[in-house]
């Protein structure tokens, strides 16, 4: 009788909706109960099909290129004798929540950053120092479009304090307005990191003045302000940094 078995817990387990103690209890149960193990597999199959109920969205064309580049980079590193210590150093330098996810995101972004530099259209030249920056250990802060949902940005901060901001999804502004990146320290007024406009495709690549330490920074935001540079943060938050500590 299926009712004698933890069917409710199996269903929640398959959906990833059980807290740890209950998950452990299910793990222990299915290890000895073939009926529940089979039921759990069936539920897991159902859960895996749920995304098919969504309207499909094709991935960006550059996603595979980044994956491939990362695989090849990892291969190249494995062949180099100095790689393990370099990688360990990189790992030690990064502080991030949800480390397991973020480490891959950082590595992927680093590759994506290099690719972005390579394929950039002519414009404000990032220069060789930026490419060098992208190859150095550092930190990537993600800015999400809280006030402008289609906007997204990455702030790359090298360990020596140099920084660049890559932006997409913002609308070009009239001449009298500018986008402004702010660092908001605890207990003191916001500090400007950069002012910038975006090109017709909504993108920008900007050099950033990063505070000597982000430890005292409570928020990093992008607003729209009067050109050439707002003296105070007055605009709506278009983008906010996700937790970076």
């Amino acid at each position, binding site marked *: 009788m299926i009712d004698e078995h933890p069917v409710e817990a199996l269903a*929640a387990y398959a959906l990833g909706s059980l*807290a740890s103690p209950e998950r452990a209890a299910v793990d222990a149960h299915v290890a000895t109960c073939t009926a529940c193990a089979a039921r759990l*597999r*069936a539920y897991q*199959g159902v859960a895996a099909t749920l995304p098919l109920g969504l309207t*499909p969205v094709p991935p960006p064309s550059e996603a595979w290129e980044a994956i491939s580049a990362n695989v*090849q980079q990892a291969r190249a590193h494995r062949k180099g004798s100095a790689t393990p210590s370099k990688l360990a150093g990189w790992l030690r330098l990064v502080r991030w929540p949800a480390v397991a996810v973020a480490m891959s995101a950082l590595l992927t972004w680093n590759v994506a950053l290099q690719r972005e530099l390579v394929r950039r259209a002519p414009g404000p030249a990032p220069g060789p120092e930026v490419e060098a920056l992208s190859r150095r250990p550092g930190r990537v802060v993600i800015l*999400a479009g809280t006030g402008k949902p289609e906007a997204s940005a990455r702030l790359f901060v090298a360990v020596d304090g140099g920084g660049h901001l890559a932006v997409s999804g913002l609308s070009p502004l009239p001449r009298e307005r500018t986008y402004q990146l702010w660092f908001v320290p605890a207990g003191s007024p916001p500090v400007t990191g950069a002012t910038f406009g975006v090109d017709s495709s909504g993108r920008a690549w900007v050099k950033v003045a990063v505070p000597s330490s982000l430890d005292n920074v409570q928020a990093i935001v992008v607003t729209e302000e009067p050109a050439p540079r707002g003296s105070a943060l007055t605009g709506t938050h278009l983008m906010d940094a*996700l937790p970076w500590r």
Partner: protein
Amino acid sequence: MGRSRSAGTSLEQPADLELLRRMRLGDEAALEMLYARYGGLVFTLALRIVGDPELAREVLQDTFLRAWDGRDTYDAGRGRVPWWLMGIARNGAIDLLRSRPHQARLREQERPLSQVRQNESADRGVADALALRRAVGQALAGLSDNQREAIELAYYRGLTQAEIAQHLGQPLGTIKSRTRDAMEHLRTLLEPLIGAGGSESRRD
């Protein structure tokens, strides 16, 4: 051999397990084929969870990098390859979602998918799963609103049963029953299409 449709798979060859075998030998082309087959589905899932195309792309990339790094740890006895991939993707996306500011998270959850670019014809990775896609859509449509909400909060928002109960102001037992009934309904309708058991080793 007699491979029927499974979750998100196509009928094309080689089979998923063959791709995993080749990946274990270091064949990057096999990873690319796996990506061609499931990349669209993984991206769609990630986008539904995190709401932001750039973050969804990171989840997508992370998922396939993890699949590459973890190709030796995949256990066919515990489920099919697409289930494994969807699990990696969902966990990565939920981790990312949980790390986000509350307001941003809510905003993105409320954001309709129509705001992002859509091009079904380009979704080659799931082009052969249209029948299953229709079946899933019909099965989900057969759920009550309460059941669908329970499933969505669990799977796409990553909430535990207790968190869902709190979120909806409903008794925990009600949420558990709702979730079970919904999954039973879906299993009954979809199992003939996705197959019972789910072990890859029985099928390839």
